[in-house]
């Protein structure tokens, strides 16, 4: 493998003349967990919306494992191995948890429409493997008892866990998590962190956008800091914590070691 797993070069995005992201370049190496932080309005969400295909970028290119994904549709990103979650957690409310996970997996097992329609042996094998994997994942995120219940019954934190499990079902190479622990209680944060570590141990790299700085510092091998759409710092959490520009722009008093989660 030459170069990083995921690479963004010169990303730019403007809304009606306001610069949301400018000249942003970064990389996520294979197997790493990278954090993306910054104050509100610093361009984090815009960045991940662009590089997952949900918003057109004004400039810049991005590559996953050497293959260019610039300008491609969201489902093409997912097919290539880049899956994202959403800040406003999304789930198929009326479907069971097991079906939520099965849907997430079904575009990735290579079984075509015709095989699906005539219920071919390949389809049955694939669906059985999916069901098994879904069962394991629900076990890991602690939602196994609700496997047959509709997703609508889950609490906010549980929905975030389901979203991570669903992302894992797509056999991702890179998972982009949009605020995985925002508004979630401390117990649930620990469960989400465990799920993320498990996802990483299974071989996926992660790019995590989060406001909870302690959570990011604890989890990530490297952290990128944005301010007003520009990258102002990048490096391991220890160095970011000491960086004067970061302290001034974002972390403020919270950056003292006491803030470690």
């Amino acid at each position: 493998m030459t170069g990083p797993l995921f690479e963004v070069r010169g990303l730019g995005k403007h809304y009606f003349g306001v610069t949301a992201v400018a000249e942003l370049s970064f990389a996520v190496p294979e197997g790493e967990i990278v954090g993306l932080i910054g104050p509100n309005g610093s361009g984090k969400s815009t960045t991940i919306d662009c590089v997952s295909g949900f918003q057109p970028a004004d400039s810049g290119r991005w590559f996953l494992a050497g293959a260019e994904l610039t300008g491609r549709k969201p489902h093409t990103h997912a097919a290539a191995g880049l899956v994202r979650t959403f800040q406003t957690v999304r789930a198929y409310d009326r479907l069971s948890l097991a079906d939520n996970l099965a849907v997430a997996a079904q575009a990735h097992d290579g079984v075509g429409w015709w095989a699906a329609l005539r219920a071919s042996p390949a389809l049955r094998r694939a669906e059985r493997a999916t069901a098994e994997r879904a069962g394991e994942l629900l076990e890991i995120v602690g939602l196994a008892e609700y496997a047959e219940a509709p997703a609508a019954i889950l609490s906010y934190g549980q929905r975030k866990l389901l979203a991570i499990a669903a992302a894992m079902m797509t056999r991702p190479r890179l998972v982009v998590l949009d605020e995985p622990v925002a508004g979630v209680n401390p117990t649930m944060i620990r469960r989400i962190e465990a799920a993320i570590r498990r996802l990483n141990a299974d071989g996926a790299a992660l790019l995590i956008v989060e406001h909870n700085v302690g959570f990011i510092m604890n989890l990530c091998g490297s952290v990128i800091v944005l301010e007003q759409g520009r990258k102002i710092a990048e490096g391991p959490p220890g160095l970011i914590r000491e960086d004067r520009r970061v302290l001034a722009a974002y972390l403020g008093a919270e950056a003292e070691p006491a803030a470690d989660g």
Partner: protein
Amino acid sequence: MSARVFSAAAVTIAVAALASLPLWSSSPYLFELGITAAVFTVLSTGLNLVYGYTGLLSFAQVAFFGIGGYTAALLAVNEGLSVFAGALAGGGLAILLGLVIGYTSLRLSRHAFAIVSLSFALLCLILSRDWVSLTRGPMGVHGLLAPVLTLPGLGKLRFDRPPEFYELMLVYALVVLALVHRLVRSRLGRAFVAIKLNQPLAESQGIDPLRYRLLAIAVSAFTSGVAGGLYVFHLTIVDPSIFDFYYTETMLIMVIVGGPGSFWGVVAASLAFSAIPDLLRFTTDLRMVLYGAVLIVAMLVLPGGFGGLAASRRRAAAKPA
């Protein structure tokens, strides 16, 4: 498990009862009603597939129906093609046009599809009336002869009388229902529902909404087109009224009252609402007004349709006291 056995038995009994209708009734009125019900069940199940499952409001179903009717009629009259070949050609043309309007409008949004499908249906109506050299204008194509099916070993089956035509449409409707049932119960149907429930999530998981929606449009265009291609040979005429908004309205009522996304709910509503206009025939002037009133009451009392009611009963039964 026992629920599956029960529903299989229920379907078998219903099919046997419907198929044996000519044995225990000779009422032409009943056969006419049965033919209407079969046609509307096919049309509303097609609309349910597109609207109820994938979330696309389509006004083009009547256009597919009429295109099938005109194609089969013109091919039979001008080229001497058999009814069945003509109906299949009509279904094929409907698929092609359905894919064209679907592909072009869905690149924008599903609201664009609703508007384009409506315009397409109106365009078909105008063309059928004004492109006289092709469609023979407001007079329509008449003198259509009943289909004849030559079966090896069995001789010729003629469908010129209501009981025979009723059996033909019943078989066709059952084939369509079996096909669509298979589709929506497969994981393709699961993807349809996922797209309708949360399109961005489905996209983020690698599901291409456009491809799935085009599949649903193509299937419903074909089944509606073939239904039109067969039905006009029972009417013995096809004229611009086959594109009438009445069909669209009736299909929508059946799907909404049946419960969008509920397979059996829509089938039940199709049967019920095929009978209601005939039951209301005593008052020709108020017929459609009363029909509208029934729809409004149904929406107030059953917001999720028959299907929604059944689902909430199931939920209530599953919940421990």
